[in-house]
């Protein structure tokens, strides 16, 4: 009784369609957990890097020195990337034009591009997590419905409608739903958590971009007065 109704035995004796559904759900669950772990590590590292960079930026260091110290643009991340993109554009535009508005427009544009790339980097694969979270219950439910269909078909074959003829089918069908929920619940929880954390980090980057933009604006105003004088 226990042996024939154990979960591995039920899974092995399920129909092909239900087994396929279970396989899809297992793969989805594994991939969603890969994404969860990977995103968790990425976001933790990005948070620490941002904290470290902000301490250095607001420590009163010269911006040229900071720009020189930071590694090349391809390897920077987060606020550092935004800073490098903006400062490089500023340095390139200052000798070419004397209009502060044009300079600030170019700086803002380049910083927006950098911010957009950071957003793309932080929210990578989170869509997959959302897909698993929303779709796997339906996939599991499909397996359940298919299994119960099979159980009723076998019931129509049997002469006596006993619980023993229906029970294995319904049990294996319900295992499909359970696996769907098993894949969906962590995906939902970690999608919410990771998306909120990445959103908060992106907000910090935006704040930093605005602050850096205001610093450059102040410098340009001072230089414009000096030129005018």
């Amino acid at each position: 009784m226990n042996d024939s109704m154990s979960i591995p035995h039920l899974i092995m004796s399920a129909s092909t369609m239900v087994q396929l559904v279970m396989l899809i759900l297992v793969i989805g669950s594994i991939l969603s957990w890969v994404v969860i772990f990977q995103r968790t590590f990425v976001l933790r590292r990005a948070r620490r890097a941002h904290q470290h960079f902000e301490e250095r930026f607001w420590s009163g260091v010269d911006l040229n020195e900071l720009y020189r110290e930071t590694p090349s643009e391809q390897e920077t991340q987060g606020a550092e990337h935004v800073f490098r993109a903006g400062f490089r554009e500023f340095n390139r535009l200052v000798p070419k034009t004397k209009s502060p508005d044009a300079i600030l427009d170019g700086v803002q544009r380049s910083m927006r591009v950098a911010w957009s790339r950071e957003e793309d980097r932080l929210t990578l694969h989170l869509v997959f997590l959302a897909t698993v979270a929303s779709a796997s219950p339906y996939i599991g439910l499909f397996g359940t419905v298919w299994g119960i269909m099979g159980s009723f078909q076998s019931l129509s074959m049997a002469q006596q409608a006993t619980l023993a003829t229906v029970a294995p089918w319904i049990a294996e069908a319900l295992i499909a739903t359970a696996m769907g929920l098993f894949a969906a619940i962590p995906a939902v929880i970690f999608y919410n958590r990771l998306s909120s954390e990445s959103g908060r980090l992106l907000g910090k980057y935006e704040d930093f971009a605005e602050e850096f933009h205001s610093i450059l604006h102040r410098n340009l105003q001072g230089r414009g007065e000096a030129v005018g004088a």
Partner: protein
Amino acid sequence: MARQQRGVGRRRRGAVGYGLPTLLAIGLHVLILVLSVISLPQRQPDDPETSSIVQATLVSTETATDQAQRAEEARSRAAERQAEEQAQQQQEEEAREQEEERARQAEEESQAREQAEREAVEEQERAAREEEARRLREAREAAEEEAQRRAEEAERQAQLRQEQEAERQRQQEAAAEAERQRQLEEQRRAEEEARRQQEAEEQRRREEEEARRQQEAEEQRRREEEEARRQQEAEEQRRREEEEARRQQEAEEQRRREEEEARRQQEAEEQRRREEEEARRQREAEEQRRREEEARRAAEAASQGLDRAIEGESDAVANARQAQEAANSFINLVRRAVEQAWVIPPGAGNDMAATVQVQLGPSGELFGATITQSSGDGSFDRSAVQAVEAAAPFSELRQLPAMAQRDFRQFNLRFTPGDVR
């Protein structure tokens, strides 16, 4: 080139690879799988097997069984009882005869023993008297011999005295002393004789005491023998009683075996009869058609009247049998259904019993279940009533013949928890 360098750079420093997360995710799933495989069988408790826990037995169906069957059973029981009583009477008479014979034998034995004892006592007395006489004679002979010896010695001493008279005259003082010595010796001899006579008397007394002791010992032996006889008789009585008990047990076992065989035969016959029922019904239907046709054909009816009457009687007998078999199968079905539905309360003891009167509607639905004989435990009674309510409706009632349906509208169920595991 720049894009490629960028891509290389991202890969080189690109925050986190996918190797570690993949390993972690697969490890997590394997862990969950192992836990579910290992711990789930332990969590599942042993399913309580609901079958054959309960022994709900149908005690009385009041008007259920046919009167003919009852009468037959009563007759068979009465015949068995008469046979038992006759057997018991025969056994008792045999026992009485045996006891009387034993009593007679015991009396004869006791008389023989008393005679033997009397003879033995007389012989002993005679032997004792003869021995005493012999002793007296011997003592007298010994005394006479001693007297002769003394006389001879006295003559010798007298001769010596005559020879020594001269010396005595010379030595009168010594003679006087010798006379004194003689007197002393005579006194001693007289004392010795008195002692010997006393010793002889003491020997007689001792022998008499020994004879008495022997008699006492023999009496003790007789008493012991009598006690042994009484014990033997008591043991024999016990053996007789045990043998009677064994005979009764064997008789009961034989009755039980016969009853069981009868039951088995009945059950086997029930199955055969059920199979035959359908055939009979078909035959009956065909016979009815035939009868109708026969009624139309009046001319043929006259010639076949006798045959029809015989067939009708056999049909009636067959119908009665079918009703009995259907009733038995219905009882079994009801019993099984109620047993499966009965949840025994945990505190119920094995010796508790409750009788529930069940009233059924025409199609087997439950009209009422009331307790006619309470077990004393309210929860037990409630569980019995709930079992009947859960097992209802007994739709098998419809399959019974009309006569049996009426009889089974009301019956009693007796609830006793059997070997509850």
